[in-house]
């Protein structure tokens, strides 16, 4: 909290606003523009400290007296030019100024308490609400025998089925038997793979089918992107919900990201209500897709 306030206060814009407010107050108190008093630019000890710090960060040593004086002069110069530029309205039509101010507004909108850690209850609630996001997928361990349609043509299906029959009739069917089929370029045995991971290798129909097989016996044939397979699943690990403790780091990061976005959106929504927006929909429809710069390399 304190860190945030101090970081807000370090933002030059905030400083300017505060300074501006003070000056405005001072000015009004002294009699306003009607008075003779020239506007004041005050360089405080805290400003000097900041110059010192920034110089140190950049050059790895403290500034000399002359360099510090130079920084102050530079600041004053920038400040005067800035105020005059604003007075002339030079900030009005400038994309960069607009964008920067919009960014700062969003920063301000994130509120003063966003630097704080959420309470355990808040985190637990968030974790529950988004349970699906942290769910660990079901996994299977399986081995397979490949029957190539390219090599066997229409016989592939028959060959796979008769190999299956033969396997099932054996008192103790082998745990793996790639040699009963055709050579296959990927692996014959896969341990603890999720449906998505299997789909990436064999195609999604095969993955869905394998996830549905029961454990312990040879089954199939199951079709993949490559042909037919007899499959023996030796282990199903069901999908499971991890505890908050197991995934705390990820949940915390997600919580903070979500809260940041929520704040910005809520803030914007409040502001948006104050405006009526009129868009020339017809022009939007007709807009030709704009040309863009040519880029090389």
């Amino acid at each position: 909290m304190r860190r945030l306030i101090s970081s807000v206060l370090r933002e030059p814009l905030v400083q300017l606003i505060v300074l501006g407010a003070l000056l405005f107050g001072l000015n009004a108190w002294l009699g306003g523009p009607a008075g003779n008093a020239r506007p004041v630019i005050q360089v405080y000890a805290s400003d000097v400290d900041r110059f010192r710090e920034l110089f140190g960060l950049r050059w790895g040593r403290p500034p000399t007296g002359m360099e510090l004086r130079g920084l102050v002069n530079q600041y004053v110069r920038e400040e005067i030019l800035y105020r005059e530029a604003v007075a002339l309205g030079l900030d009005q039509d400038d994309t960069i100024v607009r964008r920067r101010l919009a960014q700062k507004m969003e920063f301000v909108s994130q509120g003063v308490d966003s630097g704080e850690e959420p309470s355990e209850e808040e985190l637990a609630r968030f974790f529950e609400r988004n349970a699906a996001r942290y769910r660990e997928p079901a996994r299977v361990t399986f081995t397979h025998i490949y029957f190539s349609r390219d090599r066997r043509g229409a016989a592939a299906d028959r060959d796979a089925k008769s190999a299956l029959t033969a396997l099932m009739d054996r008192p103790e069917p082998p745990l793996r038997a790639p040699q009963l089929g055709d050579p296959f370029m990927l692996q014959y045995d896969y341990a603890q793979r999720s449906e998505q991971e299997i789909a990436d290798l064999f195609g999604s129909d095969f993955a869905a089918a394998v996830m549905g097989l029961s454990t312990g016996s040879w089954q199939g044939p199951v079709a993949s992107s490559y042909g037919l397979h007899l499959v023996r699943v030796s282990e199903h690990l069901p999908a499971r919900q991890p505890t908050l403790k197991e995934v705390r780091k990820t949940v915390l990061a997600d919580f903070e990201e979500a809260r940041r976005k929520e704040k910005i959106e809520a803030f914007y929504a409040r502001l948006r209500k104050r405006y009526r927006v009129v868009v020339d929909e017809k022009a939007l429809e007709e807009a030709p897709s704009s040309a863009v710069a040519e880029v090389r390399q």
Partner: protein
Amino acid sequence: MKKAIFWKTLAGWLLAALLVLPAAAQGQGAKQPIVGNYCPYLGEDYPKNVYWGDTHVHTSYSFDAGVILDLGPDAAYRFARGEEITAQGGMKVKLIRPLDFLVVSDHAEYLGITPRIKAGDPVVLKDPVAQRWAGRFAKGTFEDVYAVFMDMVTSIYEDKELIQDKAIKQSAWEYILDTAEKFNDPGNFTAFVGFEWTSMPNGNNLHRNVIFKEGKAKAGQVLPFSLFDSEDPEDLWKYMENYEKKTGGEVLAIPHNGNLSNGLMFPLTDSKGNPLSRAYAEARARWEPLVEATQIKGDSETHPVLSPGDEFADFETWDKSNLMGTAPKEKWMLQYEYVRSALKLGLLIEEKTGANPYKFGMIGSTDTHTALSTAREANFWGKHVGVEPSPNRMNVPIIRSKVDPKLSSFGRDMSAAGYAGVWATENTRAALFDAMKRREVYASTGPRMTVRFFGGWDFAGADATSPDFVDTGYGKGVPMGGDLPRASAGKAPTFLVSALKDPDGANLDRIQIIKGWLDKKGKLREKVYDVALSDGRRVGRDGKVRPVGNTVDVANATYTNTIGDAQLAAFWRDPDFDAKERAFYYARVIEIPTPRWPAYDAKFFHIKMPEGTRMVTQDRAYTSPIWYTPAN
């Protein structure tokens, strides 16, 4: 009923006998010594998985992309690991499957300057040139943005650095390093740190992507090397050597677009015009173990003029000009631009100097400037923001020639390519980098097909179709990227090759082995052999092969896998081998015809393509070569 059980039982026993008998027979006649381990899983330290990635992706941190792109390195990594992203043009985009690794390779020149000017970074805006550009961006018209872009391009072209503040570069580099650390997830997704060195004397492309094995701890001790530091690749290698000495880390460089170098990429002389020395050859082979053989700006495997006998040679050819469109292509340049020719020249230089500068493996990558690594015909997001999917991307210039409009290249010329397949033991920076160093990698023009290629002296015909294919390959030979061991007298080298289609892609038409060699008369030769053909086809007496056919329905942008094979494998022995001749061999795998990306555009946007736009393609993969060197 009983009969059925009888037959089933008999079949079962026969099957069991088949399984047991060979072993028993061997046991009985066991005069031979017993070698190796009984347990078949011991010592399997060879790579089991191919990992897919892109070594060449630009983000807003590249000066050129940055003028019109807001997606930075974080978006590039998110997209590569499978997340849905909103592209610059506002459309949502996602990969069919995540990639396993990604190198963000932003240009070292003016690194990170455009996004920082746009964000109003006070450190950058202290610089007067940056201020001027900021003013242009602020106005924001096409002419203004283009003027900034041309300022930067011209300064690169003229080798005059306009913004020299090292602090700016340092802070951009740190952001890139931090982002890579954030996304690097050993075992799941590898985020490499890298940059592109953008040397292009007279507009001739000499670019290299530089990839670090390590992360911030080591790569953070140096700054990216830019063409303003030097245009000469030998100086880049010195920088790389210095990195390794200083940090104990490792680094490699990958050249690309030889096809736009106008004869400069694979020369016979160094940048000062001296014939290549042994030292040059050794340095180049050490620092540049790979070449990016295919990408959006064309394919550089070979050219129809260089390989007139190769019916697949004219593939996504870009041969009008150099990179900047400032000079036309001339025929003599081609041999110094294309990969196959360079591999041949390497043999010649090795014969003369004792070292081969062009002993490189092959990968593909995109070189996209959209932060989105896409290489699939059906999901192609183009070279830069201006050629993301839209009804009029076909006529947007990619290379806009100022000297002759005929030298320009356009959106319709883009190739939806490519990716790098890496055979590594695990998905980590170290394992992938080591695989790249030993060249156990291959190039794909998009599809993620699995390709194995082994060379040795003792393979037999049955090895190609054995379930132990891979054990045999490593046990009796060397994988892609390797050197054949010494020849046994009277023997010719043998090869095992196999390919499996992309699980979501097209079937395979064929596998070819391409041999290049230096014959006894000192002449460089090449030959393409069809070694595995789909659909039971055979090579005819005349050496020709019946085409695989074509199922593409251009209007609907569809094809069917009713032709071609899902998997192909072959054993091959070189029939023309001479033990005294230097040679290399690599495999090329060709898919059946599929719709080229403009067919998908035409269907989606209901538009007619410009005259002459190719609508059908045959995507392919190139393996790294295996070399044969005679014993003195």
